[in-house]
């Protein structure tokens, strides 16, 4: 643990109300939480006997809410290491009885819980607040006065004054919305805000004491990549301009820079949400398009050329008709360039077939613009491969551009291996020598692993073969369905890769398209033939020979020498850079003021022009994708490589402590991971650690990385400002009053009044209660009902969501739910059963407070009665169920008021009766309240959507096989047994095993 963490915990413990800690992402949240728990434990066990008379002798358990799996694991590990505090994971699958036992037995233990389970257990008094020592929330940015976290905090604080400790490592989420931090704190009964940005003096000092050695490697992108990036940015820009033109959004927030982040969607949605239902289709599509484009930008740097093309093809099928951007000029460019990174079609005479690409992709967009004015059709440098390859008719020339980072990675690994084998530094005992390569996702990890073992050429080839096989399959399919295809409307041209012919085009797009298709199919059939042969022959040999035949240009470059020289080249460079780096490090520790963010200063090593030039020198020579390294040679090289571990950042596992790498190559830079490295290094100050960052030069990657730092700093600055203006109401003894003090009588007081006002006046007031389905605890309505003083009885309901009285049952639908469940037909079934069992069945249509109070935009009403319109669906519903009552509610609070008003003069609902309603009697099992948790609901929903599966037989299927995976393998006879129908079983089996049409054209 680092010294500053002690300080964080010490600060937190000062206030008996608890506190909210906001820290930079990547700082050790798990270790902080664990330390806090240990401190609490220590504190209570040392002062347990006399000091506080109110608290029971035992400390009570510590509840940890909504911890993500990875974080949970880390905290658990740390606590188990200490051996002081028992830890239990009370997941949703733990049965109620077992949970109750855990609560009563585990005083002084840490319990991990989900809010849903905890809220229900508190309401049903399975867990008494007096048994709770403290509440820990690890995702404070999600708290608001209607959130389930706040609900739980209130349920606990009402009965017992326990501290609430909240953490958030997403500062930017803490500033989203007006006075978000303050409102979150009020709702959690927290008075103090502790800010721990990375640039906090203490944190910075700890992390910068022995910083790792950092080398920043800038890899230039290939010209087509640059072109695609520019085109995507163009398209995004166009979408943004279009969005601005709607006059519905605040222009200032909408920049391409911000568009790189996921949170951009949130910004736009937050602005548009209040009027989302009134927006036209086009505006909604623009927002969706921006999301797609951001993904494309991301995948451009992450995926190899072939996979990227595949993804684009997929997109074209799934988005083609709807998207706005897909028809734009720049998107044409994206598709063309992506194709060009993979293959090129040549005419019989050997000249290239060039589809209309109007701009030369160059590094600078301005230049590109001017050349587009000339309307010149130029070739890409990389695709000018030898032109005298004339033996093939309509030959497909493979380009198969490798990702530039692959090469650099290999070189780095070789260099590291050399260093290690030289043994220039005496290897310490504790050094593993492991090289950790950190990528964004599992997929990249797998691919890089293959790159190293098989060689990048082979990887590209494998992807390419897969691609071609997909095409071949599709073609086979299309032949069968030719009739249908010919009927396709003209507008679908874009789906086939045809684009509206520009006037300047010299060849008809159709003929080009045909040429291309034929060539692709020829290559594909070649491969499928070879694959059949490969059953006999060795696979790799086959593909090698085939490569020779198609390309016919395996150049015998003495590769080994080249790589050697590069390696030594790089070596020199890195040593000079080391010096530079140390230089900046010294600088960084010199200026210890708040702005000396270590990662900024380290990244500033990138300003070192020298290094950029070096790298580009090295790679530029070999960037041309045609240059080949022999497979055999690759394999030999691989043997020389150091032990490499791959790590997917998305997996959220914290591997640094387990693998203890001595070199880390950050393949996909990520700010959180940078902090984790820093913390790891600071925790192990004696260990030697070298970190390489691989950035694509002038790419969105760099932009994204830099603006994520900027964004976080801005968030903290804003939080610092907010903190100075914050007003949290407290009572005289310094206790927080919480969000709605009026509706919360203090427990002691109310007890007194009970005794004083002879006979208990409160008892005469009707204690209202509402039965709530367990699944509804995902929403905020139970929380708000509770705020209004209604008793909530959580049970699992088969029919309806809320039971207000023996007569009134309510099915609640938010607007999006309503549309969805109309579409799926679920609503019809729900209403049908509700009508069967209750005298007053109610459909509650609940609008969101923050959104506009209307159903649809005026334009959507249209001139005619359209069966798809929501009005038609509602009308049909009320025609078929005239007994159905509809409640239109403006907001959560309005709903609560209506509930109360409907309940007056009605009897209170009976929970055991409500629970039994609609439960099939043949089941025979007594339904207990955790039923919802005991089922894999997602799997059941999936199952029920399969053909042949009906309301009557799905339970039997579930009983007969463990999971969907089992179902997939079940023979048809067994299915027939389970389903009680030969026909149904056949339908299901046929559907499961049916060959999916390959939909990518």
């Amino acid at each position, binding site marked *: 643990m680092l010294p500053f963490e002690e300080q964080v915990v010490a600060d937190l413990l000062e206030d008996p109300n608890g506190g909210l800690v906001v820290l930079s992402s990547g700082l050790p949240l798990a270790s902080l939480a664990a330390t806090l728990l240990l401190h609490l434990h220590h504190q209570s066990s040392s002062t347990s006997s006399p000091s506080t008379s109110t608290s029971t002798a035992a400390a009570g358990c510590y509840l940890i809410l909504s911890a993500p799996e990875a974080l949970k694991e880390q905290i658990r590990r740390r606590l188990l290491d200490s051996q002081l505090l028992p830890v239990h994971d009370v997941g949703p*699958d733990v049965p109620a009885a077992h949970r109750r036992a855990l609560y009563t037995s585990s005083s002084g233990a840490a319990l991990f819980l989900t809010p849903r389970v905890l809220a229900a257990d508190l309401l049903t008094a399975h867990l008494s607040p007096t048994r709770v020592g403290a509440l820990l929330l690890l995702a404070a940015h999600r708290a608001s006065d209607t959130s389930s976290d706040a609900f739980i905090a209130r349920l606990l604080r009402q009965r017992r004054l326990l501290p609430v400790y909240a953490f958030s490592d997403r500062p930017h989420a803490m500033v989203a919305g007006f006075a978000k931090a303050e409102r979150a704190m009020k709702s959690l009964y927290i008075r103090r805000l502790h800010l721990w940005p990375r640039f906090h003096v203490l944190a910075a000092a700890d992390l910068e004491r022995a910083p790792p050695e950092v080398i920043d490697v800038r890899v230039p992108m290939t010209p087509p990549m640059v072109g695609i990036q520019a085109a995507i940015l163009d398209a995004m820009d166009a979408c943004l301009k279009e969005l601005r033109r709607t006059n519905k959004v605040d222009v200032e927030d909408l920049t391409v820079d911000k568009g790189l982040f996921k949170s951009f969607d949130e910004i736009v949605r937050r602005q548009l949400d209040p009027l989302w239902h009134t927006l036209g289709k086009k505006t909604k599509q623009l927002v969706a398009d921006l999301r797609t484009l951001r993904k494309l930008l991301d995948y451009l740097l992450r995926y190899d050329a072939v*996979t990227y093309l595949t993804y684009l093809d*997929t997109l074209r099928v799934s988005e083609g008709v709807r998207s706005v951007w897909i028809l734009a000029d720049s998107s044409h460019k994206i598709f063309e360039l992506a194709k060009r990174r993979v293959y090129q079609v040549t005419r019989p005479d050997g000249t290239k077939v060039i589809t209309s690409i109007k701009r030369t992709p160059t590094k600078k967009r301005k230049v590109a613009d001017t050349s587009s004015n000339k309307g010149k059709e130029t070739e890409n440098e990389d695709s000018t491969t030898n032109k005298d390859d004339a033996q093939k008719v309509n030959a497909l020339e493979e380009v198969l551009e490798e990702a530039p980072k692959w090469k650099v990675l290999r070189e780095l690994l070789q260099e590291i291996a050399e260093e290690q084998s030289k043994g220039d530094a005496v290897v310490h005992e504790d050094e593993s020598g492991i090289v950790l390569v950190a990528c964004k996702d599992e997929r990249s990890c797998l691919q890089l692993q293959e790159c190293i073992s098989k060689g990048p050429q082979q990887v590209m080839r494998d992807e390419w073969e897969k691609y071609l096989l997909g095409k071949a399959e599709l073609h086979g399919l299309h032949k069968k369905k030719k009739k249908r295809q010919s009927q396709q409307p003209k507008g679908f041209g874009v789906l086939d890769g045809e684009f509206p012919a520009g006037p300047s085009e010299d060849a008809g797009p159709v003929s080009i398209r045909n040429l291309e298709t034929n060539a692709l199919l020829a290559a594909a059939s070649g491969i499928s033939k070879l694959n059949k042969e490969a059953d006999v022959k060795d696979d790799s040999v086959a593909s090698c020979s085939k490569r020779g035949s198609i390309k016919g240009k395996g150049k015998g470059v003495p590769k080994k020498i080249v790589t050697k020289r590069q390696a030594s080249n790089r070596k020199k460079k890195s040593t000079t850079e080391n010096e530079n780096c140390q230089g900046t490090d010294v600088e960084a520790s010199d200026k210890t003021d708040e702005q000396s963010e270590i990662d900024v200063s380290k990244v500033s090593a990138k300003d070192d022009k020298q290094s950029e030039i070096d790298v580009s020198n090295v790679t530029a020579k070999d960037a041309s994708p045609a240059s080949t390294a022999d497979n055999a040679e690759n394999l030999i090289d691989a043997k020389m490589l150091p032990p490499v571990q791959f790590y997917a950042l998305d997996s959220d596992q914290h591997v640094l402590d387990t693998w203890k790498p001595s070199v880390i190559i950050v393949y996909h830079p990520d700010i959180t991971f940078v902090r984790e490295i820093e913390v790891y290094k600071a925790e192990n100050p004696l260990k030697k650690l070298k970190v390489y960052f691989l950035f694509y030069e002038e790419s969105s990657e760099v932009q994204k990385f830099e603006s994520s730092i900027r964004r976080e700093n801005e968030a903290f600055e804003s939080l610092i400002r907010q903190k100075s203006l914050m007003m949290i109401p407290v009572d005289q003894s310094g206790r927080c009053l919480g969000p709605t003090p009026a509706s919360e009588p203090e427990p002691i007081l109310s007890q007194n009044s009970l005794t004083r006002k002879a006979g208990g006046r409160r008892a005469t007031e009707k204690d209202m209660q509402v039965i709530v389905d367990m699944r509804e605890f995902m929403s905020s309505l139970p929380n708000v009902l509770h705020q209004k003083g209604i008793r909530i009885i959580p049970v699992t309901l088969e029919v309806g969501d809320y039971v207000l009285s023996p007569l009134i049952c309510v099915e609640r639908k938010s607007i999006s739910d309503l549309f969805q469940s109309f579409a799926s037909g679920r609503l019809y*079934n729900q209403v049908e059963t509700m009508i069967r069992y209750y005298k007053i069945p109610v459909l509650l249509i609940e609008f969101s407070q923050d959104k506009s109070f209307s159903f649809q935009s005026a334009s959507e009403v249209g001139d005619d009665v359209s069966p798809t319109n929501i009005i038609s669906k509602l009308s049909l519903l009320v025609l078929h169920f005239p007994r159905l009552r509809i409640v239109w509610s403006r907001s959560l609070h309005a709903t609560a008021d209506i509930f109360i008003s409907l309940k007056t003069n009605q009897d209170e609902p009976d929970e055991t009766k409500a629970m039994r309603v609609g439960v099939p009697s043949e089941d025979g099992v007594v339904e207990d309240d955790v039923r919802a948790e005991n089922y894999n609901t997602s799997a059941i929903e999936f199952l029920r959507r399969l053909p042949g599966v009906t309301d009557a037989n799905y339970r039997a299927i579930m009983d007969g096989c463990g999971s969907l995976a089992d179902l997939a393998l079940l023979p048809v006879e067994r299915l027939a047994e389970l389903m009680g129908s030969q026909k149904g079983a056949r339908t299901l089996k046929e559907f499961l095993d049916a060959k999916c049409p390959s939909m990518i054209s």
Partner: protein
Amino acid sequence: TAASQSKNAILVSNRQKGNPLLKHIRNARWTFADIVPDYVIGQSSCALYISLRYHLLHPDYLYYRIRELQKNFKLRVILCHIDIEDVVKPLHEVTRTSLLHDCTLLCGWSLEECGRYLETIKVFENKPADSIREHTDSDYLSRFTHALTSIRRVNKTDVITLGSSFGSLSRIMDASMEELARCPGIGERKVKRLYDTFHEPFKRVT
């Protein structure tokens, strides 16, 4: 023929004369008649029209109108025009009144919408509920998409990706985490969600 004509038209009470709503009933025929409800839409359905603004001025009006309605209409619609900003209190009252007196409340935010409800109920008078029930038969691809998109966050692009990478639904259901992770566009979380859906038992506790 007059009788049959009135059978195919919406009957409008004379009280509604001058209601601009009538301009917006264009997809169904209507005719004035001497009736108790504001509108008799079909054999068994009728409607009362109220605007929230009017309700604010005459809070008892709706109750008295409902009391006049006979019980021989199966569907009794209160058609409420939301024509004010501050809706919570008046809408609460209208909701309560209609609910406790066996009426179905429908809200429209414009006269067009209100008119459309009347038209639609007339036009759909004898229409089966197929379009709001679960669709039973359709082509392979829609069923395939329908099933896979039941899993949260799985979109149409993912469906196509999965379909073309694995070849059949049973192969997808049996796929390993690693195989799923290899599909472009399917991130870590989606992989886990897919895998869990297929491999976690239907019943978690036996």
